[in-house]
């Protein structure tokens, strides 16, 4: 390698750091030893590198000096953390209450809607049957309470466990009781001219 073909500056920079491959480092080193210009550049690079290292060390020392009051800093940090945690808890509670309130309103609305729909659509007999089934399920069977036989303008009805039997009669029928547990309707049948008496018994 002669002076006319100096290594490129980046080759010299890598040589100064010892980062060149083995054979290229041998050849560049022979050139540097024989070429004063390149030797001067390598020396300058190494000097700059040393300077950079020294300045970097000085800056690190200055940073540690800045946090020399470690206990004070720890107190500040813990304080900040506590404030943050407390604030987060406050926000979390506020949000949860709001969510709970919304869910409660939703649940109450849906329940009210369900019951309104149930009462409007489901007959009383079904409710009684469901209540009886529930009582039976939990072992609270009780004797029948309430109306057992009832007369209406078109018939006499006995109800039990969600079912109902009505013996029908015309509106002209005369209603009376025939025993402590039965109601009677009496009428003259228009077609046959005969008297018909219907009884409905409850227990």
């Amino acid at each position, binding site marked *: 390698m002669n002076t006319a073909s100096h290594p490129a500056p980046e080759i010299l920079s890598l040589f100064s750091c010892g980062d060149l491959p083995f054979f290229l480092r041998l050849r560049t080193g022979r050139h540097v030893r024989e070429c004063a210009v390149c030797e001067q550049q390598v020396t300058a690079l190494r000097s700059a590198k040393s300077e950079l290292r020294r300045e970097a060390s000085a800056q690190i020392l200055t940073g540690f000096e800045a946090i020399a009051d470690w206990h004070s800093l720890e107190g500040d940090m813990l304080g900040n953390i506590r404030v943050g945690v407390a604030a987060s808890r406050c926000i979390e509670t506020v949000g949860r209450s709001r969510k709970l309130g919304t869910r409660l309103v939703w649940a109450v609305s849906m329940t009210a809607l369900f019951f309104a729909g149930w009462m409007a659509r489901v007959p009383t007999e079904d409710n009684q049957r469901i209540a009886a089934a529930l009582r039976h399920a939990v072992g609270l069977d009780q004797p029948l309470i309430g109306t057992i036989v009832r*007369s209406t303008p078109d018939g006499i009805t006995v109800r039990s466990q969600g*079912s109902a039997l009505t013996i029908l009669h015309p509106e002209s029928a005369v209603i009376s009781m*025939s025993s402590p547990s039965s109601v009677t309707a009496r009428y003259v049948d228009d077609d046959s001219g005969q008297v018909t008496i219907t009884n409905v018994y409850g227990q």
Partner: protein
Amino acid sequence: MCMANKLFFIRGLSLALLLANAASAAENGKWLDFQFPHDSPVLLVGFSESPMTVTPRGSSVVLDLHKSLTLRNVGTKPICGLTLRVEAQDLTPYGKGSVIKPSLFVLPGEEFPVKVDMRLMRPIAAAKTESAMVQVTLDCVLFSDLKAYGPDKLNTHRTLLVYELEARRDRQYLARMLDNGQLPELREELNFGIQDYGPRQLGLELLRGPRTATLREQPLTVSPMTFPKAPVQPLRGAAQVAGNEVRAPRVEVLNTSKMRVASVAMGWIVRDDNGEDFVAGAVTSPVAIGPVQTSAISESGTLRFSRSSGQPMVIDRLMTFVNDVQFSDGTLWIPSRSDIDSATQDPVLRRELATSPEEQRLATIYRRDGTAGLKKELKRVTLPN
């Protein structure tokens, strides 16, 4: 598919399945079944039926069943009355019904109609069984000699006997009027003679179990109404009354006869706050009373009264009378027409007490066919001596 459409679809599908099931069951005769014992004096010889209607109601289904049976007297004695027992399997054993035909006079070999109109409501999801949902069975047949046939599970033999004795009493009463030429009196009797008269109609509810006291109960004295020749006389009585409800009525009676009494039917009259009297019916109590002895007859439960419109009826007064008495030898006493006439001065109440099923039937014939029709009918139903 939105929720509304899904619900509509499900309801439609359920209804379709239900109607299909109903149609199938109707074809197989599973809704209604008739049972007459092989030795029965009456036989089912035919029936006509109106189309059964099936209507969904909530999670239940309502079945309207209408049948007109034709029965034939296949026995050797005239039939005077008959009871058919109606039992729905869903309500057994809590409730049942019956259809009674009193005041009959069906000779051997003759046919007569009996209509059975009923409505059954049951849950759609109720269990299906092999037997019919409604069973109509012969319960009791009363013959002209006052003997009976049938299991009499509803104890209607006694009821049929009372109706038959009342029928014979009223037939004789009207026949005597005709024979004596008392046509104005007959017209008054059967046209009721009172302007705008119509049977006073009641609404009734029978209640059971402990009631919530929404109204304050008040004791009410029960006023006895006596038939002069009655073998049992009501002495005094009491009941608890709250608004339109009567609870635990109790009446003390005296057996004035020399015979042992087996049962007494006490009739009840309710007077409302307008002063109108309503015959509420008669309740039979099995009570053994020796000659010249007293006994107390009481009823449990609660009876709620309303007008036919459903409006509650405020009870102002309760009256009781002895409707009929059965002695231990099986014979029955019923009040005579003169007993009824002398019991009260109120013509409307007297009329209501006297109106038996037979008089009701004969009055219909008189209004339709006149004196000639009544004579013909009385001749038809009068037993040959």
